[in-house]
């Protein structure tokens, strides 16, 4: 046990007592942090799951549409049609601090406001299936961006929660009990020293009185 390695002095005792107070305070704060992080995480992860299901469904649908479109056109025409996109997305990244976790916030700007600019081709040589496919994909875009933000936040928060939980557990199950143990050990050792010097003094007093008054000879 660690307590056997502590030097039983008053200075050490004061130090340990201070350490215990700090550890308790830290434990309480970290526990609060963990609980709040957990609450926010659970909210976030639910929306993450919903978004992901929606996005995956949307993309799968769009992919089916693209396959249909590809089937009704020859590949060269398709490639030409999609070769030079009109639209361009610009991304801005900000950081938001949630319970000391930095999470990204994505803002997007498209080059043109017109939502019909996703069709990067004239309609003469392409099939209408392609229009539908592109349209269906553009509908999931907004959710895809939201998903990126939420999923990243979830990952970051999950690892922060893991770290915090470890710290809380280390304080609760290791640091605090060990310090208490050491404090107990020192207190007992000091008390023991106190008693032994008390006894020694009483003994010395007895001997001195014996020397002065010679009680044993009188009896």
């Amino acid at each position, binding site marked *: 046990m660690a307590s056997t390695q502590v030097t039983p002095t008053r200075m050490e005792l004061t130090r340990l007592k201070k350490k215990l107070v700090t550890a308790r305070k830290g434990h309480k704060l970290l526990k609060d942090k963990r609980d709040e992080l957990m609450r926010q995480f659970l909210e976030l992860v639910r929306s993450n*799951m919903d978004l992901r299901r929606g*996005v995956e469904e949307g993309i799968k649908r769009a992919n089916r549409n693209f396959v249909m479109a590809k089937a009704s056109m020859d590949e060269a025409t398709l490639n030409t049609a999609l070769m030079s996109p009109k639209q361009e*997305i610009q991304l801005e990244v900000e950081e938001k601090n949630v319970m000391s976790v930095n999470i990204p916030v994505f803002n997007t700007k498209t080059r043109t406001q017109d939502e019909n600019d*996703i069709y990067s081709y004239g309609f003469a040589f392409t099939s209408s299936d392609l229009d539908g496919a592109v349209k269906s994909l*553009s509908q999931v875009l907004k959710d895809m961006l939201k998903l990126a933000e939420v999923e990243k936040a979830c990952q970051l928060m999950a690892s922060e929660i893991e770290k915090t939980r470890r710290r809380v557990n280390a304080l609760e199950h290791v640091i605090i009990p060990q310090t208490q143990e050491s404090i107990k050990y020192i207190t007992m050792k000091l008390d023991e020293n106190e008693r032994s010097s008390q006894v020694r003094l009483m003994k010395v007093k007895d001997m001195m009185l014996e020397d002065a008054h010679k009680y044993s000879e009188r009896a």
Partner: protein
Amino acid sequence: MYKIAVIGDYDSIYGFATLGIDTFPIHDENEAKTKLKELTGGLYKIIYITESLASKLTEEIEKYEEQITPAIILIPGISDNTGEGINRVKQSVEKAVGSDILFGNQ
């Protein structure tokens, strides 16, 4: 000003180009590794990757999990979908809570 990228096999991703997202068709694993490294080091802060390709790049992707950016997000492709995207969400619940209490039976 940053941009968004999609990587995966050509058939799964060519449609994204019309939306203004940069597409990077990938043919083999090694190409994917170099491409991912190149993209994450540069302008791209959101990278969508198809599940089939992501299953070969698990290590590389996990490396970025604890960084703020880039966000690497799995999306289903035309074929070989592994369901890893959903799995990853479950994994993060497991990491945070200790066990998957939310989506365990779904």
